[in-house]
Each structure stands twice: as C-alpha cells, then as structure tokens.
C-alpha cells in the first residue's frame, strides 16, 4: 500500500506536476531535474573529488543485491507509468530527432538511454539512474538551435554516466547528511530499500544533485557536445537567455528553480563562456544545427506557445517572444502570439505613465506586424475581430470575422462567429 502511494507521488513528480518547476524543494532533481536545466562548467581543478564508484560502462546493469539495483527498480517502475502518460509526446519525427542527438552524444551508451518527451510547458530535462531521460516541451520552446538542445541533453547524460544519483545516495548515508537521512530512515523502518528510495524521493530529502555534480555534468555536457562538432558557445548563450527570461519575470515566485539549486547563474555563465573558448581551441568545429532544428522542432512551436500563454506568466512570456523574434524565424507567427499575449492579459494603460498604452492597442499593433510578416494562423483575424468588438468597432469586427471565415471555411467555431456577425446582418 505504502509503496503504491509513494510510487504515485513519484510518478506525479516526474510526469510534470506544474509545481515541480516553480516550487523550490518540491520534487526530486534526479527525476524532475529542475536543477539540471542549464549547462555550465566548473573551473578546472574544482571537481567533486575522487568518485566513490567508477563510471558506468556501456550496457552495464547493477548487480541485483546492490543499493544501485534498488534505484533502478524504482525507476523501472516509474518508467512503465511514463509509457502510458497522458502528456507523452508521440510525434515520431520529433522523438527520433531528440533521441538521435542523445545517441550521438552518448556514443556507445546510446542503447542504454531511453528518451521520453513530455508535453509540459516548463524548461526542464531530467535523468534517472536507469537511463531514462525525460525532456519537457518547454525546453524545446527555449532552445534556439540543435547545439543548445545538445548542451542540455549532454548535461543530463553527464548525471547518468557519472552515476550521480548513486554517489548522492551513498554520500547522504555516510556524511553530515546522515542525521537527516536516518531520521527519515527511522520512520521507514522495515521498508525494503526500493521503498526507502521512493520514500526519500517523495519527501524530497535526496532532492537535488549537488552543486559539484551539476558542475561536473556541465563540464561533461560541454565536452560531449564539442566532441561531436557542436559550437560549445551555444551553451552559454542558452544560459544567458534563461537568465534574461527570469529577470523579466515580474512575479518572482515563478522563477526557474535551478537558480536556487545550481551554482550562481552569472558566475556560471562567465565560466561557461571561458571554458567554451578553451574547448574551441581543442575542437574548432562549430555546428549549430539550425536547419535541422527548424525543420523538425519549429513546426510544433505554435502548440508550445499556446501552452506557454496558458501559464499566464505574461512578463516572462513577453521576454521569451522578444528573444525568439531576435532570431527572425517565422516572425509572423511570433508577432501573432505577442498579440495574443496582450489580448489575454488585457491590461489597461497606466494613466500616470507616459507612453503606456492599453494592451488592446499593443495587441492590434502586434497583429499588424504579424500580417505584414506573413505566416500567422488564420485565427489572427478572429482575435482582431474580438478586440474590435470590445472597442465598439462593429464593422471592423465583422470584416475581421469574415476574413477569418474566408481563410478557415471549415472553422470549428463557424456557427458562433456567424451568430456574432448577425446583429447587423
């Protein structure tokens, strides 16, 4: 019974309970690895010391009688739930693409890693000790090219290859953390090791990888990406963009959680840049994989942007859209979503602030840009119609609705749109 309950908590954490990405200390970093969200590097020589156990070899599984096997057992059970998760992304091309990058990074370890894409609109990826890697779609929305995606995937692989979960577990049992560890352990007396592991995960007691482990994974991620020809500088760029998004957030409660569990972001960003330059000297290839990324990931961007806006974290979404626009790819689509953001936020102008305009005017301006750039979905006309309707500009509203129906003659909401156009015939 207890194991079932714990397993349910575990699955909830992993399958992307929203709280995982916003509530520090909630969940488990080895599962929903908020900590493992952005790559970075440690200064040479500042490594985590002598490892307690050697790295995994390709195809290696732990011996049955070990604590490591206990971890694997718990994760195997969680993995079976992942396979039927409601938010599992089943798009074949996208799965093949991400798995392909993982395989190139992992080399001989490729067959040991299973990748699961989950439709969760936060920036996150996680790595379990049994080789299960979970990637959230909010990450795909924020990485700007294949190299940036590879930077995060490589970082996650680092946790697996260096057996960080096991290190953390054994460290917790043998060092100053023992007190906390055994207090909880005492409450679980008689529960087999797998049950204890699940309990500790559920209680958040072995939650995060240590900062040293994060640094080590950053270093490994960067090495792996550089070795197969990706531009290592993209890693620092991704990190800087995440900082920028976080700083734009008016509601500090929704900040990226890794700011509390990872090395200080600014320092880390600097270290990353410096070490990327060193890596470049060693392997000067600088592929970013822009085209493949655009062909396979960007067709899904509208879905992910809709998910993003539904979070109603408007200030950070506004910054995110601004950054995506800097790439200039599918600008029409991005301006449309900027318009949607302002329409949904619906903030009135602040009378005291000079130059401040109503969100409805901002929305209309963004829609106009979207139409200029081309590539916005037909709903843009429906959205414009709604704004005109609210401002009492009926004729403009009906013209916009008519345009929407002209472009989407089979629209799902055809009847309601027609009914809204009826009063004036």
């Amino acid at each position, binding site marked *: 019974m207890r194991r079932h309950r714990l397993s349910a908590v575990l*699955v*909830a954490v992993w*399958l*992307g*309970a*929203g*709280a995982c990405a*916003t*509530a520090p200390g909630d969940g488990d970093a080895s599962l929903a690895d908020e900590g493992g969200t952005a790559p970075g590097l440690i200064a040479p020589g500042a490594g985590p010391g002598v490892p307690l156990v050697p790295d995994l070899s390709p195809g290696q599984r732990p011996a049955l009688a070990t604590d490591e096997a206990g971890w694997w057992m718990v994760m195997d059970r969680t993995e079976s*739930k992942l396979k*039927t*998760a*409601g*938010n*599992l992304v089943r798009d074949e091309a996208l799965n093949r693409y991400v798995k392909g990058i993982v395989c190139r990074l992992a080399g001989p370890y490729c067959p040991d890693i299973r990748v699961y894409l989950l*439709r969760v609109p936060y920036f996150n990826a996680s790595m379990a000790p049994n080789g299960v890697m979970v990637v959230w779609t909010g990450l795909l929305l924020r990485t700007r090219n294949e190299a940036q995606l590879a930077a995060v995937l490589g970082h996650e692989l680092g946790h697996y290859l260096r057996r960080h979960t096991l290190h953390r577990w054994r460290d917790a049992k043998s060092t100053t953390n023992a007190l906390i560890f055994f207090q909880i352990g*005492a*409450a*679980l*007396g008689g529960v087999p090791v797998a049950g204890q592991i699940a309990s500790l995960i559920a209680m958040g007691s072995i939650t995060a990888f240590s900062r040293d482990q994060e640094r080590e994974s950053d270093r490994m991620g960067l090495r792996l990406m550089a070795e197969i020809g990706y531009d290592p500088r993209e890693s620092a760029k991704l990190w800087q963009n995440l900082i920028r998004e976080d700083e734009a957030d008016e509601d500090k*409660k929704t900040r990226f959680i890794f700011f509390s569990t990872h090395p200080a972001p600014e320092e880390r960003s600097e270290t990353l840049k410096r070490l990327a330059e060193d890596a470049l000297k060693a392997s000067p290839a600088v592929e970013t994989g822009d085209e493949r990324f655009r062909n396979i990931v960007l067709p899904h961007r509208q879905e992910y942007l809709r*998910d993003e806006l*539904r*979070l*109603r*974290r408007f200030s950070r979404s506004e910054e995110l859209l601004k950054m995506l626009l800097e790439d200039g790819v599918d600008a029409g689509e991005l301006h449309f979503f900027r318009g949607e953001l302002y329409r*949904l936020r*619906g903030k009135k102008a602040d009378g005291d602030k000079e130059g401040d305009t109503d969100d409805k005017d901002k929305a209309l301006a963004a829609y106009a840009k979207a139409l200029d750039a081309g590539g916005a979905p037909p709903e843009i006309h*429906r959205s414009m119609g*709604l704004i005109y*309707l*609210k401002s009492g500009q009926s004729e403009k509203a009906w013209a916009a609705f008519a345009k929407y129906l002209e472009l989407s003659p089979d629209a*799902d*909401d055809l*009847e*309601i*749109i027609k*009914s*809204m156009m009826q009063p004036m015939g």
Partner: protein
Amino acid sequence: MARLASLFILALLIAACVQYSLVKAEKVAIGDVYTVDAQIAWNKKTEGKTEIWTVDGPLLQELRFIKGIEDGDALFRGGAGKKLPPFKSKMTAIEIKELFETSLAQIGVARLKTLNLRPESFGKVAGFRFEFTYALKNGLEKQGFALGAVIDEKLHMIIYSGTRLHYYPKHKDDVERLVRSIRMI
C-alpha cells in the same frame, strides 16, 4: 512516531471528507436562476458557487453546475500556485471557451481539445455549447460537453464529463434530457 503521523493524516482526511446529499429524479432548482429535471438520482456536493453531481463518483463522471460566477471569479478551484484566469462579464463565447481551456491547462490536463463551439439556448436564454476531450496525466481519457450562458453579467455553465469509454456515455442521454429541461425561474 510513524503510526501517530499516519493517524493524524487519516484524521485530516476524514475531516476533509465532503458530504454528499441525494438529488432525487425530479425537478430541482439550480440556485435561484433556473430549474432542471434531474432525470435520474444523483449524489451532490457543493463547492462555493458550484454544484457537482455524480452517480459513480466524481473521478468517473461528474455533472458540474457553475452557478453565476461574477467578474473576476475563476471557473474552477485551482491548487496552490495556479493562476486560474478570471471570468470577465463582457466575454464572448469564444473567450469563455478560452477561459475553460486555460483553466484546465493550469489544473494540468493533457491533450485538451475543444470542439464545435456553437450557439445553443440555455433555457430560453441565448447561450453556447462545445464538446471537449482530454487525458489525465496517467493517460485516462475523458470526454465531455459544456453548455453556458451569461445571464445578468454572470456566467452559468453546465459541464458534463466522464471517462471516455464508459462513464461518459453511461449517463449522456440523461444529461442531454436534463439540459433540455432547463426552465428559467
């Protein structure tokens, strides 16, 4: 220690148990705005301005009456840290459907699809209706429909949903008859 903690949690759970009451298969007033013929017997619980009726349990199927939420109110109860969007009295049916989608996304459902938004009368009032499907995180598929209208600047909705394979179809016809029996008070 562990046993004490378990007992404490159990006591909390019992205290948190909701009381259901019986709704007989007869004419029932929903707030002071309209009546419906319940068609069959239901179990009812109340959460603020919402009544939730069920036959087999709310996780399997539920008939939800949202009784006149006002400007600024959320459609559903959200958990901690959720930013459920507020209803605005000037919203069109399209925006109310968006409100529904955003609210469910915030609550955390997967693969949400809303379908066929169309005008439909709510009793004698001009209203709207749409169908929807979604999946829970564990993969369980749900299906439902929503009927709504803004009456005196307040949003009234009747939302029927249940597991797609059995509990939604089980009482769908009863609910269709129920919504056709709406009479404004």
